[in-house]
């Protein structure tokens, strides 16, 4: 195994020597496996290894970034050269400097499941086939499965900086999902089922298949709802998608640049009291958890919305410098190819006390949303105004009624949060658009556009 800390240290030394500035290296080594099955057969089995290094340099307030996959002495030299040349093109920024040394790095356990390595390709293929089989067996109206997928990953990360901070950690993750197809008289419906865990032993393949089958079959015979303004109940996957968007709007980078609907609302009432939100980079069940963030600052738990009020924004070291605040350990990056930027770690919406049945009763007459589409094209991230495609069920007399599709829901992020009347008691981890744990959310009123 490569000594990643030593490698990162060499890259930093190389960059400091050639630029006279500061430098920080992030290096990672990843092993991935993926199985795709279709029609009872293994469609593909992928085994992959990835390693690379990204180097951020600061030269008199100018920041540059270089990355590469060639980690030989010559390769590191080329990466350093690219980063230094990049910095020379950038304009100076008075707040740009490497993060200071961390006081204490917390210990986080349970981020890695060693059992992953013990599961052979044949065994994970069997798991993926079981996911598909359980969807097909769950309901006679399930006509097929578009694809069932198993994926796992183990990653080692090391960070080193000329300013002294850094560290290393290992994580593993795995998930399974499928898209089930149900055939009804009025046409075809699809339904997603998924599960996630640190290792394959933590997955429940049967529940993934059953969920996909249930979501597809319940949509059979769906119609368009009438356009109206009414109470709306979001299922945890939909709630999580919106919370992911909210996490983006809470980043100090977009706030400082005036591109967030939450800018200048610190301390204000931005949500119904039932909506309590934390960012928690240390929660063992959260896939974004690690002892340190993407620039070596300790991860931590941060209250974002409590008692309906906005408590703080999310900071990395740059936005903290600029905003006269402390980093909340929210530097993130999508691997060695990208420099760190502000991002939420695990966003956790506190569960309430109401069961799904109680929430439906509270709604009385309204719409249950179990899927949204076009979240990235239908949302204005600056104003928070959105209009997105949706599907779900009517709620009549406090219970789920006929399926609905081909309609849109529209509001803006803050109005929606303020309209949260209750949260359900059963949260779920959802990996779409970040790592989010959310219960069902009851929104008092929202515009539904159908026919």
């Amino acid at each position, binding site marked *: 195994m490569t000594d990643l800390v030593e490698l990162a240290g060499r890259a930093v030394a190389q960059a400091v020597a050639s630029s006279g500035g500061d430098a920080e290296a992030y290096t990672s080594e990843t092993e991935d496996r993926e199985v795709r099955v279709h029609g009872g*057969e293994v*469609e*593909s089995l*992928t*085994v*992959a*290894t*990835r*390693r*690379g290094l990204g180097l951020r340099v600061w030269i008199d307030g100018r*920041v*540059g*970034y*270089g*990355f*590469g*996959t*060639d980690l030989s002495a010559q390769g590191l030299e080329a990466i350093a050269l*690219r980063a230094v*040349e*990049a*910095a020379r*093109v*950038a*304009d100076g*920024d008075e707040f740009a400097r490497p993060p200071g040394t961390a006081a204490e790095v917390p210990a986080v356990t349970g981020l890695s499941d060693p059992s992953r390595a013990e599961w052979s*390709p*044949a065994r994970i293929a069997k798991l993926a086939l079981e996911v598909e089989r359980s969807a097909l067996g769950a309901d006679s109206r399930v*006509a*097929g499965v*578009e694809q069932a997928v198993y994926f796992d990953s183990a990653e080692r990360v090391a960070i080193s900086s000329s300013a002294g901070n850094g560290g290393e950690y290992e994580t593993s993750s795995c998930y399974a999902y499928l*898209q089930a197809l149900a055939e009804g008289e009025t046409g*075809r419906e*699809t339904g997603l089922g998924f599960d996630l865990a640190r290792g394959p032993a933590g997955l429940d393949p049967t529940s993934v298949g059953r969920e996909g089958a249930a979501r597809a079959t319940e949509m059979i015979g769906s119609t*368009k709802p009438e*356009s109206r*303004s009414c109470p709306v109940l979001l299922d945890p996957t939909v709630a999580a998608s919106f919370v992911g968007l909210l996490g983006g709007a809470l980043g100090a980078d977009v706030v400082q*640049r005036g*591109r967030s609907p939450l800018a200048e609302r610190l301390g204000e009432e931005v949500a119904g009291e039932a909506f309590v939100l934390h960012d928690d980079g240390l929660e063992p069940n959260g896939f974004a958890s690690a002892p340190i963030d993407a620039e070596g600052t300790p991860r931590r738990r941060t209250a974002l919305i409590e008692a309906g009020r906005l408590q703080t924004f999310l900071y990395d070291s740059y936005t903290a410098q600029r905003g006269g605040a402390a980093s909340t350990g929210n530097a993130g990056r999508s691997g060695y*190819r990208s*420099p760190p930027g502000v991002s939420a770690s695990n966003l956790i919406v506190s569960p309430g006390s109401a069961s799904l049945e109680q929430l439906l009763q509270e709604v009385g007459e309204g719409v249950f949303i179990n899927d949204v*589409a*076009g979240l990235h*094209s*239908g949302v*204005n991230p*600056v*104003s928070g105004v959105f*209009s*997105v*495609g949706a*599907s779900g069920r009517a709620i009549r007399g406090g219970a789920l009624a006929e399926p609905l*599709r*081909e*309609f*849109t829901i*529209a509001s803006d992020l803050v109005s929606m949060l303020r309209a949260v009347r209750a949260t359900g008691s059963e949260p779920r981890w959802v990996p779409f658009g970040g790592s989010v744990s959310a219960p069902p959310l009851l929104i008092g009123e929202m515009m539904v*556009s*159908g*026919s």
Partner: protein
Amino acid sequence: MSHGVEPLEPAIAERVLARALAHGGEFAELFAERRGGLTLAIDESRIESVQSGAEEGAGVRVLSGGTTYFAHVDGLGQADLERAADEAAAALRGDRAEPRPLQAVASIPLPIEQRPEDIPAVRKADLLRELDERARSAGGEIAQVTASYGEARREVSVANSDGLFSSDNRTRVRIGAQAVARRDDRVETGAETLGAHRGFELFDDDPVSIAASASRKALTLLDAGPAPTGSMPVVVAGGFGGVLFHEMTGHGLEADHVQKGASVYAGKLGELVAQPLLTAYDDGRLPGEWGSDAIDDEGAATQKTRVIEDGRLVSFLYDRQSAARDRVASTGNGRRESFRHLPIPRMTNTYIAPGEGEPEAIISEVKKGFYAVSFAGGQVDPATGDFVFGVNEGYLIEGGEVTRPCRGATLVGNCLQALAAIDAVGNDFWMKTGMCGKGGQKVPVGTGQGHVRIASMTVGGTEA
């Protein structure tokens, strides 16, 4: 990044392919790639986020009995390639198969006049400063401007056990501008991009006009009222308006979806799916276009494929594997984001061919309707055909005239119905660039059309 040397030597490729078939398999392929690029941005009138990188690696796949065994590694050393071959073959248990000797197929990469890596980085920074100034010059209500520049180069080689050996060298450049306009509590954004499979010569002809366009869109939206709600005729403008066709029809024509029964177009080959006024193509050879390449990522020459002829569905889009299943030839649509991905059927440049309608008449024939000029993006479920599009520039049509701008509109519908409802195709035509996501892979695609009218479609608005 080294220049002019193909990422793969045939002699080494032959050895790696033999190793990949050491435990059997009907087909083996080695895809090697060097990729590099530079991106920079301007924000708050300051050049930042300057990033430069280079990566190299390879992917090996072995097909055996309907299963694809795939492994990819970083690095192009012989040991790296052999490790990928061994890992791909590891789960196979058959007898050794022999690859055919490699025969190089000549392909001519798309011409690049000014290699972006030969242009000093300060000129790219200056281009961003010009975009920033031009966008801000649109007026005091423009509160913020961001712009970005990106250049990317991919040198790829494909070798397979059928004896194919082919290489390509691809350079793309793209700029984008985004403006935020503010009036009291109203905040609106506008964006525009310009990109091509070309070199820095793309920027010879007033590239900065995209910044003016981004500002104009944002300012227009400040005056926008709520969008209408309900079913009505919708006129879609050309260029990026073509993303509607891309999403609602193009994806359903990709043969992998069709063969899994996960496309609403399955079983409809030869049938009328649109009115006879509609003909459409996928063309991976359009000179300089964003979605063009000399070869696809399986080494097949790219081509112009007619998919709809006078309203009749005439072809799907195939990669090697889906073509073999249907016993037809690949249409050169086997694409992959990088050596870290398996090739799958993907669109290249997909467009509705110009028709006979006058754009003015297409609008003036509408009593009450919606005019969608550009989309923020869209999404479709190929299996059900349900789609949704966010409109970022849209107007009301009243009494045959485009009246006021609307914000927050969404178009929702079903592919088969919406395609059949196209009752006018304009004689104007232009193309736009996009990044298309499928199966976790993003590839550059072109979309295009002139003005197109859909007789009836659901507009999900913000009007109560």
